[in-house]
């Protein structure tokens, strides 16, 4: 478990960007208008088999992180929180 201090402005901006992308491109086209930060995106159908790769392309193209095939897994892409963690972890490297 991470015991991060209060998120910096840059960090929460990342989360907002991811949330906005998922909402506009993946959730709304499936009739889903909102989701919580810890909501399991695969279980509710927000992210489907193609959505996974649209999301990964977004992380790579817009947020500038490289995501390996092995990192495309149900743990790292579970919910908004875990996706944000992935981006932050990758940027630190």
């Amino acid at each position, binding site marked *: 478990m991470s015991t991060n201090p209060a998120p910096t402005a840059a960090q929460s901006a990342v989360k907002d960007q991811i949330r906005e992308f998922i909402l506009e491109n993946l959730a709304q086209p*499936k*009739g889903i208008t909102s989701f919580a930060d810890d909501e399991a995106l695969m279980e509710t159908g927000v992210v489907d*088999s193609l959505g996974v790769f649209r999301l990964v392309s977004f992380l790579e193209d817009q947020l500038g992180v490289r995501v390996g*095939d092995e990192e*495309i*897994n149900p743990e790292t892409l579970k919910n908004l929180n875990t996706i944000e963690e992935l981006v932050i972890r990758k940027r630190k490297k």
Partner: protein
Amino acid sequence: MAYILQQLLQNSAARYPEKTAVWARGRSITYRELEERSNQLAHLLQERGVRKGDRVGLYFPKCVESVIAMLGVVKAGGVYVPLDPQAPADRIGYIIGNCGIRVLITRTDKRRGLNEATLSSLACSILVDEAPQACNGAGMVPWAMLAEYPAMCAPQVTLTETDLAYILYTSGSTGRPKGVMLSHQNALTFVEWCAAKFKIRSEDRLSNHAPLHFDLSVFDVYNALEAGATLYMITEDLALFPSRLAGFMESQQITVWYSVPSALTLLLLHADLRADKLKQLRIVLFAGEVFPMKYLQQLAERLPHVELYNLYGPTETNVCTYYQVERGRLAGMDKLPIGIACENTEVFAVSDQNEMVTQAGGSGELYVRGPAVTYGYWADPEKTKKMCVPNTFQPNFEEKMYRTGDLVQLAEDGNYYFLGRRDSMIKSRGYRIELGEIESALLSHPAVKEAVAVAIADDIVGSRIRAVVAFHDGVSLAPAELQHYCGTRIPMYMIPEAIDFRPELPKTSTGKVDRAQLAQESQQLAMK
């Protein structure tokens, strides 16, 4: 020789009682357990009033209990109806009402999501999640109750191969899904052909990628049972992650794989699919949509040791033609044939002049006859009459043949090639989608005056969907609101990914909505 599906299990349970029959979500059951649990379920179902021909819904995510439930229902003489666990409650409610399901095998959370009206139409819900404390209401039966019923034999029911085994609902053009009725004979005709053609053996390890309401799963489940092989069910979470999925194929040493082409394309693009890691894999079957040649060529190169087959057929016939990929010819091909008829099935093209196409180069609508063909659609004699027509090509006895609605061409070498559809049905990820069903969903919103759904060709999934909508005067909605509304009526894979708004839809000279123009404009918008 089996003439009803449960005999496949009975035979294998006698031969391989301690062998693993089904594996899912880290749990497995042996053939003996599967035989016993399904016997117990059949007794329970009968006690709860299920009689020969009664429909029983299966409404929960894939797990070991799915196969117990399928077999338990047919052993009770019933007809099982697999329901998409991700479909909206409204659609599930429609299906439950349409085929008169009174007993539902489900999970507590799934049951909770159903509408009041649907719940009150049910006499009994059997809950597969273990917690019996959840079953406090009347008509709620915990799965653990099975233990109280006889395990050694199934109840006495007289069935013949012509009795119904299951109903699969597919998209309907008039806005509601339609139930394709399949008999034991329909299923076994296909299963027995596959068993002989692909030489499925007891050592085989079959994957089950398709959802159970999708007819590809019929092969996985029943050909595993037929051979005494092991079925490895791929759950939704695993199916989404190609790298994990490839790891699963490797660690479970899958020998026979069957899925839609798009699942294979994603594995190719995002997983380390290597022959040395998948040594056990011997057969890959694909069906449900057109496999883009460039990806098929890559697959053939990456897995040189695997036999590849393109299977073709609508739910109404299961598979009716097949083509074995010839690696030597692949480079020069720009299109993959759907091939030739399976055994015990006849297919032929019928021209617009209503003549059978016999010359190479000729084209027409593909018709299918034989014991694999459905009786028709549940409680829809009109639709049945339209699609299952009298065979006028032979005068000696009454017989039906199925019109697929697919246009095909007969080639020199005897293979058929798929050309396109006669109507507005499309395929996306192998799912059959009637654009009319999407349009009905849009039009059912009070603000919507006109609506057209358009398919956009896509390399990986086959088609993506957009819509163009005009509102009544003085009202408007955001695309997200309308998409949300659609989500209460149609499954997610049918909801348009983008909705464009117009004051009015363009018309042709005859006053009809100009679909061709809208399709072209939408295609351009989608490219942006």
